[in-house]
C-alpha cells in the first residue's frame, strides 16, 4: 500500500487515540508522582499496609473467581458440546444471555440471590436453617464475578471442546483408563489453551471491575473501590492515579501472559 494512503487511513484513529488515551494516560502518570511522596507513590501499593492488603484481597478474589469459573464452565461446557438433547439450544442461549450484563446489574443479581430477600435465603429458611446473607461480602463479590464470567468462558470452552479428537479418548478408554484419568490426561490437556486464555480474561476482569463491588457495598476493600474512595472521598488524585497504574499493570500483565501462552484474548468488562 502506498505510504500516503496508509497514513491517510491511519490518521483519524491515530489522532483520536493519541488525544484521548495516550495523552491522558501520560498526564495521569505524572500526576501519580505529584503527591507528597513523589514517585514513591508508585511503590505505595506494596509499602503501604492498607493498599497492600487491598491488593492481596483483589488478587485473592480474582484467583478464586478464576478457579471457580473455569471449573464450573469446563464441566458444563464440555457436557453441552458433547451431548445433543431436546432443549439444548435453548439451554445454551439462556446460559450465554448474561454475556454483556454490566457489573452493576450483576451486583443486583447477586442481591437477588444472596441478599436480604434473596432466593438462597428463602431456600435455607424453608428447610428450617438460618438465613444466610452474604451478598454484601467478599463471597458475594466473588459470586458476582463468577456470574459475569461464566457465559463468556462457557462459549470459549465449547469452541475448544468441539476441536478435541474423540478418538484419543476412545484409545485411552480401550487401554483401561478410568473416566477420571481420561479427564485428567486427555480432555484437560486438550482444553489447556482455552483454559489459559479464558482464565486470564476472567482474572483481569475480576481485578479491574468496579460496578459489581460498587453495587454490593462500599465496605468491600478491593483495589478499584480503594481508588474510587481516594479520588472522591479524600480527593487524593495523585494516589488514585498511582494506584490506577498499578491496577492497570496487574490486569494487563494477566492478559499478556495469557496471550503469549495461547491465541488472542479480548476482555469486556461492563
Amino acid at each position, binding site marked *: 500500500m502506498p505510504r500516503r494512503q496508509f497514513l491517510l487511513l491511519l490518521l483519524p484513529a491515530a489522532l483520536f487515540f493519541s488525544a484521548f488515551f495516550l495523552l491522558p494516560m501520560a498526564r495521569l502518570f505524572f500526576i501519580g508522582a505529584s503527591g507528597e511522596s513523589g514517585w514513591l507513590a508508585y511503590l505505595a501499593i506494596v509499602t503501604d499496609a492498607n493498599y497492600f492488603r487491598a491488593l492481596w484481597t483483589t488478587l485473592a478474589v480474582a484467583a478464586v473467581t478464576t478457579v471457580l469459573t473455569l471449573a464450573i464452565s469446563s464441566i*458444563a461446557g464440555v*457436557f453441552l458440546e458433547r*451431548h445433543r438433547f431436546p432443549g439444548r439450544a435453548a439451554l445454551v442461549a439462556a446460559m450465554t444471555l448474561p454475556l454483556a450484563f454490566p457489573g452493576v446489574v450483576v451486583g443486583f*443479581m447477586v442481591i437477588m440471590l444472596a441478599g436480604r430477600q434473596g432466593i438462597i435465603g428463602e431456600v435455607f429458611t424453608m428447610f428450617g436453617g438460618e438465613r444466610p446473607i452474604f451478598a454484601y461480602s467478599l463471597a458475594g463479590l466473588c459470586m458476582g464475578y463468577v456470574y459475569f464470567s461464566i457465559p463468556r468462558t462457557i462459549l470459549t470452552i465449547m469452541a475448544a471442546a468441539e476441536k478435541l479428537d474423540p478418538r484419543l479418548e476412545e484409545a485411552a478408554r480401550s487401554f483401561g483408563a478410568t473416566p477420571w484419568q481420561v479427564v485428567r490426561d486427555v480432555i484437560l490437556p486438550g482444553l489447556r489453551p482455552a483454559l489459559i486464555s479464558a482464565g486470564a480474561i476472567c482474572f483481569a476482569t475480576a481485578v479491574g471491575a468496579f460496578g459489581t463491588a460498587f453495587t454490593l457495598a462500599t465496605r468491600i476493600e478491593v483495589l478499584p473501590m480503594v481508588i474510587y474512595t481516594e479520588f472522591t472521598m479524600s480527593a487524593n*488524585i495523585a494516589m488514585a492515579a498511582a494506584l490506577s497504574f498499578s491496577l492497570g499493570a496487574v490486569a494487563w500483565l494477566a492478559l499478556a501472559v495469557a496471550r503469549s501462552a495461547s491465541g488472542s484474548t479480548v476482555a469486556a468488562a461492563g
Partner: protein
Amino acid sequence: MQHGRFLYGLQFAFTIAVCAFLVVPVVMSILAGLTVNYFVGLESGLTLRWVLEVWDGYRDTLFLSLGLALACLVLTLLLGVPLAYLLARSRGRLARAIEELLMLPVAVPGLATALGLIVAYGGLAGFRTSAAFILVGHVLFTLPFMVRSVLAVLSVIDLPTLEEGAASLGAGFAQRFRDIVLPNCRNGILAGALMVVTLSMGEFNMTWLLHTPFTKTLPVGLADAYASLRLEIGSAYTLIFFLLITPLLLALQALARPRRTVFAERDSSAENDS
C-alpha cells in the same frame, strides 16, 4: 453402562444448576419489578406502577444511553473500519503494534482510563459537562471490538487479489473500498456494530466517573436506583434495561452461531469469536 448413565445424569444436573444460577436471579428481578410488594410476595398482586415510575423519573437516562450508543457506533465505524482495512492489508510489525495499542483501553481498568480523561480534559468545562465526554470514553472502550470484528472477516479473504483485479479494470481506491472492501466485511461490521452498541449501553466502570448530574446514562441511573430506592423500583428499572439489551444479545448469538465456515457461491462468511 450403568456407570456412564450415572455420570451423564450428574453432569446434566450440574449444567441445569449452573443455568438456574444464571437465570433465576433474572426472573426474580423481573417479577420483583412487577410485584406490588416484593417483601409480601406475589400474593400482593402484579402492577406496572414501578415500571411507570421509572419511566417518569429515569426516561432521560434511557434516551441518553441510546443516543450515546448510536453516536458511539457511528464513530467506531468511521474510525474502526478504515483501521481494520489497514491492518488487514499490512501485516507488518507496525500493524501488530497498533493492534496491541488499541487493545489497551480494554485491558486497562475503565477506572484508570476515566481518571486519565478527567485529569487531561476535566478543566474544559464545556466538554467536561457534556455527553461528549462520556462518548469519548465509550469509543475508546468499544473501538477494538469493531476493529477486531471487521479484521476477522477481512483476514480470511484474499483482499490483495480482489483489489488488484478491480484496479486492473480501472477502479480507483475509493471505488474499490466501496465496492469490494465494504461489501466483503458486511458480516464483520454487523457483528462489531451489535457488540459496540451492547457494550456502550452497559458501560459503567468509566461512565460512573465521567458522568455529571445532567449526563446520567442508564447504568448510572441503575446504580443510583439500587443504592437509594426500594427494591421494586430497582427491579423495574433493571427490567427496562433487559428489554433493551436482550434483542441485541439474541442478535449477537444468532450471528455467532454458524460456527463452521460456509463458502457460498459468492461471499464467504467468516468465523467470529466475539
